[in-house]
């Protein structure tokens, strides 16, 4: 019985965790696709003084951040180049050259005026200055493989964007998915566009006066997350963000838009020539990165799905075995009982019990026995289910890629086995049903016992 509850409990838990994993992966893939489309002509420029910024492995910065958790609230940004949000007021400030107290971990504040020449590079259509800063806290976590690491769990990310009518109208600098209120417009001042998560976090709705870091903003609208990066991002005018975070004249990245996708690499090279200190990431590179990422995700998803179906098969097989075993155990126990008590049954029949009375007696006994077994099994199962299901079921082994993927994969493994009241009822019902099934034949045998058996001398 314990096994009977553990397997489904474990299977359900595993399945749920794997399903949520596949769901995560699925949405990540969708978001990645969205990012790919958005960033066709986009070139991101960030200042990375002491390291090479590459790929999706965020550098170990002063704030002690580690690779972000893909399943977490804030996945690594793939559009803006700000991999790791910094902590407000905490950690050392990488941007020694002019950054305010509001820093960001992997990104360095750039003096806005130093890069005004980028706009005049040939084939550059537009340049959007962006200041991104995040407010969060350090959190020490233990990964499933036993290593502990610290990461910053951002509470919200402030993104200040240059709100010129050209940029707002023609380039994907703002979120596209507005769920209530309106989007930011050119010339907006003193207003902010919250994400849905921000709205919950602040408890603010459209039209509300919201105080952020001591300044009051009107909530102009709420955006649903349209990309991987903006679930906790609130948007406002660049100058508002600069003064709010005491970063006047500083930005964290420049989003450069090429005239067309053919010109992208040329523009990127020109920027690099002009400002070698900048880390330039073109949509081409990003596209490749995103595509690689997407293919990894897809493989992981397939592997997870295969894993789920494999586990379902295993669980199904094990349940069948458990059910068969349980019925057989009841059958044999009851047969043995009937055999053992042949004389008693004979006596009962000799003193006037009908076949039916004898049969129902033994049925009742079998059902009672299995009900008790069911309750005991559920009790043991409730305690031992995680261990038992760990033994009985394969763990969800999702493609164990390096770094971030290892973590994605590990999300599925420590399945939290939850035994719901529903499952208990089902298990108990199954126990009783199997008890009835297993008692049927022995009880019938008992009822057919000849009363003369009572005369056997022993």
């Amino acid at each position, binding site marked *: 019985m314990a096994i009977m509850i553990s397997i489904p409990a474990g299977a359900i838990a595993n399945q749920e965790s794997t399903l949520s994993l596949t769901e995560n992966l699925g949405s990540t893939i969708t978001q990645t696709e969205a990012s790919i489309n958005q960033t066709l002509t986009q070139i991101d420029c960030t200042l990375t003084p002491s390291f090479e910024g590459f790929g999706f492995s965020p550098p170990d910065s002063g704030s002690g951040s580690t690779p972000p958790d893909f399943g977490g609230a804030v996945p690594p940004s793939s559009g803006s180049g700000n991999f790791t949000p910094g902590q407000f007021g905490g950690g050392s400030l990488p941007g020694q050259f002019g950054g305010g107290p509001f820093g960001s971990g992997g990104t360095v504040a750039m003096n806005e005026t130093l890069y005004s020449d980028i706009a005049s590079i040939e084939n550059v259509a537009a340049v959007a200055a962006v200041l991104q800063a995040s407010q969060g806290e350090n959190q020490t976590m233990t990964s499933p493989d036993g290593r502990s690491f610290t990461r910053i769990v951002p509470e919200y990310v402030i993104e200040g964007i240059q709100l010129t009518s050209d940029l707002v109208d023609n380039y994907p600098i703002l979120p596209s998915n507005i769920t209530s209120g309106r989007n930011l417009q050119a010339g907006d001042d003193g207003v902010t566009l919250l994400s849905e998560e921000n709205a919950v976090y602040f408890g603010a709705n459209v039209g509300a006066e919201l105080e952020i870091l001591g300044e009051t903003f009107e909530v102009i609208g709420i955006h649903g997350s349209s990309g991987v990066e903006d679930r906790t991002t609130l948007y406002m005018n660049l100058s508002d963000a600069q003064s709010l975070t005491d970063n006047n004249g500083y930005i964290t990245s420049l989003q450069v838009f090429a005239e067309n996708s053919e010109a992208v690499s040329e523009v990127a090279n020109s920027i690099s020539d002009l400002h070698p200190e900048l880390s330039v990431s073109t949509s081409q590179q990003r596209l490749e990165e995103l595509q690689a990422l997407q293919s990894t995700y897809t493989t992981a998803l397939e592997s997870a799905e295969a894993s789920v179906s494999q586990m379902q098969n295993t669980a199904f097989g094990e349940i069948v075995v458990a059910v068969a075993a349980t019925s057989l155990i009841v059958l044999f126990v009851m047969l043995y009982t009937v055999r053992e008590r042949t004389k008693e049954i004979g006596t009962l029949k*000799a003193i006037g019990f009908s076949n039916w009375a004898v049969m129902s007696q033994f049925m009742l006994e079998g059902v009672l026995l299995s009900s008790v077994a069911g309750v005991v099994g559920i009790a043991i199962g409730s305690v031992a289910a995680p261990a038992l299901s760990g033994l009985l079921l394969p763990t969800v082994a999702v493609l164990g890629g390096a770094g971030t993927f290892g973590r994605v994969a590990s999300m599925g493994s420590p399945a939290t086995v939850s035994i719901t009241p529903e499952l208990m009822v089902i298990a108990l019902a199954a126990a009783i049903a199997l008890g009835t099934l297993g008692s049927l034949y022995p009880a019938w045998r008992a009822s057919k016992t000849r009363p003369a058996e009572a005369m056997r001398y022993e």
Partner: protein
Amino acid sequence: MSEPVLKIENLSKSYMLGKREVLVLSDFNLQVNTGEFVSIMGPSGSGKTTLLNVLGCIDKPTSGQVLLDGVDVTKLPEGELYKIRRNKIGFVFQTFNLLPYLDARENVELPMETTKKSKSERSQRARELLKMVGLSGREDHRPQRLSAGEQQRVAIARALANDPAIILADEPTGNLDGKNKREIVSLLANLNLDQGTTIVMVTHDGHVAAHTERRLFLHDGKITKEKQGLHLAKKKSVCPFCSNQIQTNEIFCSSCNKKLDD
């Protein structure tokens, strides 16, 4: 007194032993009247138990009739037979056959379980019967806490529960020592004398059979001899030797001092 409670006519019973047919009872006739105490004696294999099983409706005869209280039980289906066993017959087994997990009173109540009697009636009846067999105050003892003799008393009380027309006892003293043996036989004899209970008892013990008024000797499925026992004399309260008055509980005649026993 002289109405036949049990009438057996031309009864035959054979078993198939492998491919060989074994005739246990052949053309057996017997009439037992109300209030009689009959013992059936015979060597093992003579068909005693088979006869009792057929009488008790727990085995079907090959041919012939068994009229119990005027009803031919050989023609009844199993669905009806259990009612006959419950209401007309009380069984006493050699091995007592009490249910070990029930106490004395519950064991006695068992045959009444499927009758219309209410729980309190059953309980009341069980207490009365246990008192009658001399087990007052032991109602809540389980079988393992009772001596063999006491267990057989419980079994006798159980056999009487539904006020049956006949008690069938299969070697009721077979598992008892001398003292208990005498007590159980006296109990049965007194039941017969005081309550007029009709009893058919199978035994191979002559001393036990001596207490009965009719002694049948069975050999190879036929009655070979029939004797009158002391019991009849006791019933008439007359010493068979000197014809003086005797008491039912006496072992020796108070007048001629002869042993009132075979």
